[in-house]
């Protein structure tokens, strides 16, 4: 803006000089316009400023690194042309705190609507919030600004890239798992409940052969065991970080979501917990299916890193001992309370920090997909 004003000064001085040197009425008029035009447009802008409406439109979900377009729509219900509306727009990844501020401007004809387009992309997953910080109406030369009410905002989720994972859930030896439901989608290991009856195929265990039916139908019939569904698994994301780094946060988020998907693929219903910086509390969300998980992401990705009391501590305060059969904790660093989480359930710690506890699995931000491809909890 300062450059534009200096340019205006240069042009005005030049035009006055030229008009005096050439005695040209045309140039004298142009020189007068350079001073009069901003003042007249200022009065128009003052009249129009209160009636300008701004709105923002963003895609709901985008992929990492994918360039998308956000739109700011300006509605000019007045009969005054808007020479230059300048908006200061902030994009903020609420998960890792990254920010970008950019400025965009447009002109709007009377009684028309104008759309300004911005492109954005994020290399890291999270929830990108777009907010119009300020908007000003300027004259043709961008000299005097009149503020316009700017309260438009929107958000979109940058989806994490999930990696294939073979998750093995071992029964918790020291806990009684009272399975109340069995999966309708896939067989399991509980021979006390039949998942389905089918014909024998080579490779089936002899223990699965249903001898009575085989005799009755005169061919080999086997039965598949059912998979018991437990509701007591939990995935906890420690969001307390002393030195947050965007790549680690991104790796943690992808690891967490991949684990969640693996659990869902095994029809395990579970609870996702995390600590929120703003409220200073631990949040819980039960996930039953993929829709729940997708619905969780916008909320989960607003959980920016906090400092102070650890999430593990908050989780211990919020829950009772032994309330989960399995607890998978994704964390950047091991706090004193982290190990105490084992009182809540069978604890597995996935950490991308340097300290790896006894029951922990370390991953790093560059090779976490490979490191967590096989996971036994």
């Amino acid at each position: 803006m300062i450059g534009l004003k200096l340019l205006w000064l240069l042009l005005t001085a030049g035009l006055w000089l030229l008009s005096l040197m050439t005695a040209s009425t045309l140039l004298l008029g142009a020189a007068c316009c350079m001073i009069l035009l901003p003042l007249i447009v200022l009065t128009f802008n003052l009249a129009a400023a209160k009636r300008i409406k701004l709105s923002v439109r963003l895609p709901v979900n985008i992929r990492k690194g994918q360039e998308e377009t956000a739109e700011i729509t300006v509605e000019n219900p007045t009969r005054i042309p808007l020479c230059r509306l300048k908006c200061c727009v902030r994009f903020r990844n609420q998960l890792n705190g990254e920010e970008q501020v950019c400025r965009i401007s447009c002109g709007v004809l009377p009684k028309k609507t104008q759309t300004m387009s911005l492109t954005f992309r994020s290399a890291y997953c999270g929830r990108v919030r777009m907010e119009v910080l300020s908007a000003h109406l300027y004259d043709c030369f961008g000299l005097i600004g009149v503020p316009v009410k700017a309260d438009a905002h929107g958000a979109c989720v940058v989806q994490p890239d999930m990696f294939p994972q073979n998750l093995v859930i071992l029964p918790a030896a020291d806990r009684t798992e009272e399975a109340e439901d069995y999966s309708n989608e896939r067989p399991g290991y509980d021979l006390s409940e039949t998942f389905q009856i089918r014909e024998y195929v080579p490779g089936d265990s002899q223990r699965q052969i249903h001898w009575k039916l085989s005799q009755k139908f005169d061919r080999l019939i086997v039965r598949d065991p059912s998979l018991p569904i437990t509701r007591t698994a939990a995935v906890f994301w420690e969001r307390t970080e002393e030195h947050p780094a965007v790549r680690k946060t991104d790796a943690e988020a992808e690891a967490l979501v991949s684990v969640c998907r693996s659990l869902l693929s095994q029809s395990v219903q579970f609870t996702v917990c995390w600590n929120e910086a703003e409220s200073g509390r631990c949040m819980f969300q039960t996930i039953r299916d993929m829709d729940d998980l997708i619905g969780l992401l916008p909320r989960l990705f607003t959980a920016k890193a906090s400092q102070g009391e650890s999430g593990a501590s908050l989780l211990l305060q919020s829950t009772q001992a032994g309330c989960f059969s399995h607890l998978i904790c994704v964390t950047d660093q091991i706090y004193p309370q982290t190990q105490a989480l084992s009182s809540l359930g069978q604890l597995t710690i996935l950490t991308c920090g340097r300290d790896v506890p006894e029951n922990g699995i370390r991953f790093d931000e560059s090779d976490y997909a490979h490191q967590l491809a096989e996971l036994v909890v």
Partner: protein
Amino acid sequence: MRQKDEIGLYAGPSRETRCGAAHVISRFAFSALVFLSLTELLITVSGFEQLRMGLILLLASGLLLCGAFAAASYFRRESVLVPVLLALLLLVCVFCRNQMMNGFGTAWNEMRSLWASAKGVLLPMANAEGQSGMWLVGCLLGCLLAAASYLLVKHAPAVCAALLMVLTVTACLFRAGPWLAIPAVASVLLLAAHSGQRRQSIVSLLSCVVFSALVIAVLVLFVPSSAVQGLSDQSMESIHHWRYERGQEILPEGDLSQPLPNSDSDAAILKVTSDTAQTLYLRGFVGDTYERERWATLSSEAAAQEKDLFYWLHQSGFYPQSQLALAARQMGGFETGTVRVQNVAGCSMYRYAPCTILPETAGTQKNTLQPSDTRTSGWNGERSYSYLTLTHIQTVLPALLDFLQTDQSAQTSAYLQAESAYRAFVRSYALEVPAEFRAQLGAVLDDCCSQYGTADSLTKEEAQVSALAFLEQCFGADRYASLPLEDTAPGTQYQYATVAALALRYYGIPARYAEGYVVSVNENEVTDVDAACAGAWVEVYQDGVGWLPLELTPGLESLSAEQTEDGVKPVGTGADGEGDGLRVTEGQTPQEELDAQDDQTQEDQPKGGQRTGLVTKPAFWILLLAALLLLLIAAMVLRRYLILRKRRESFTQADRSAAVGCLFADAAALLEPLGLRRGCGSMLALCGPAGEHLGTAYGEELREMVMLNAQSLFSSHTPDEAQLARMTRFHEQTRKELLAHTKFLKKIQLQWLKCLF
């Protein structure tokens, strides 16, 4: 601190991946406009308009290339065009080299003519035959300018606007013309349309064009062009005064249409020191042509017609300003002295020097066309200089004239050849008498020479006698009333010099009008030259030795050697008048009578209406006010920018405690215009009034922020990011409240004078 390579969020204005038709048209229109502007600038400084075919081809090829660039951008093939153009240029250089060189030579010669006539710059001539290569030069220049225009418009429209304006002003200083409005208007339109968004450009541009058209139409209809011309003239005069004058103007510099400068001050105008006692005619302004009561230096256009002559003369070392010394150098046996001039209050545009100056110190330049006076260089001219002059010229001059007539050496012949050529040039303009002078005094002039025949058939001596008789009749005891300049300069040296110069011209003697200071200096003494020494005199062209002052002006002859019985002698003819200089053999006015007449003249001079300094010129005040206004705006913008930047830095500093404190202090400052002044008390006392004014929630927030500020100031615990963010939000909220509860004028004051936000 987050590493730069870790930043993964990017946001920016949308890049237009496809160029639509409207975009192509606007790009073409602007590049064509800039191309025309650059062409006009080229024409202004090169005189290319004289080469019609070249100009037409330049315009055609440039516009075509602009169109080609626009089309290429539509099909996204811009990158192909530049290599193609370069390849074509290479082919042209290889296969049409001679034609191209000839074309550029022709263009150079046109530019040479223009530079000589516009600025008096003498450039060497290029070898060119006809205009055979002009088509090629036109095409090449057109392509070059079009490519530059397109690239500037595409990549740096703001820079392009600034560049155009700077070039236009520069070109205007070189040669002002109405067509320079094209680049000036183009730069304004570029500024109005300067944006990354196409739609904004259109709205902004339309508004600018419509409103400008209205203003210009009003100006054209209601402001007469004479008023604009008057304003322009006054401005130029003001600028001249600002550059070269210090205080009151002393000499009219040829403008005798207005009341003469009248100064009774005895303050020194020049301080002159010489190592020889002599009388110096320090010549400043020289009037070669007379029209409408104004003497003017020979126009550069007229002089430029003889640019080849002057180029040759300068190459030969012949300069009219130091012709006498050059002639003396042919003979040798002369003495020189040093004169040092300190210009205290005179016009510094001229170099005050006598006709006896030596060429090495005359301030003349080989590549500059200066047929008459010597102009100083630099924005404010020169105030201090020294030069060498011939001394005892009274004794040298008669022998010199004899030597030039008798010597047959090659060197003298070469000099006389140059002098002869220059004399022919002098006679081409220094014999012109305006028609109004002929009409006014033609009968009297004819009457004075009637005894010898008609005015155009007189010998030199007869012409001298007739001129003296005429002047005696005009300025004698029974003074002739109907003379030129009776309204503005009656009875003054300026009127006398004017009438004498025109009368001499009428009788066939080349003469001109000169202004300056006549001073008698003693050996190695600083002599103060005051307003009493200022005046005008006649200079006549003496064959062989050049322009010499003629003592016809009342009051001046007392400074030189006394009159002889043979008549009036040119300066330097010696006390006994033995030289071969001009002689006027009859009717000298007695000294006493002239003194009395001079006293009478001083009484008759108009008391009011004298030309004083800038204070009486409205254009000066308009310019001054405009400049001050612009300066003020620039200063305010810069000041606000710096203050806000410093404030932002304090808000985002690494020390969070300090940042919180700065934010709170600034919020408190923002509250003051709302009537919530803390004074010397606690901010807690403002929570109640703030709650009443701005809502209870705000009052509560203020209370918490006061506590947070106290914590940041006095606690060893550093506020965390959340607290800093909260304070930032509070600061922003306070700013919004201030904006919402403040009237417009107050808002302007707070924003631009107090720089609160």
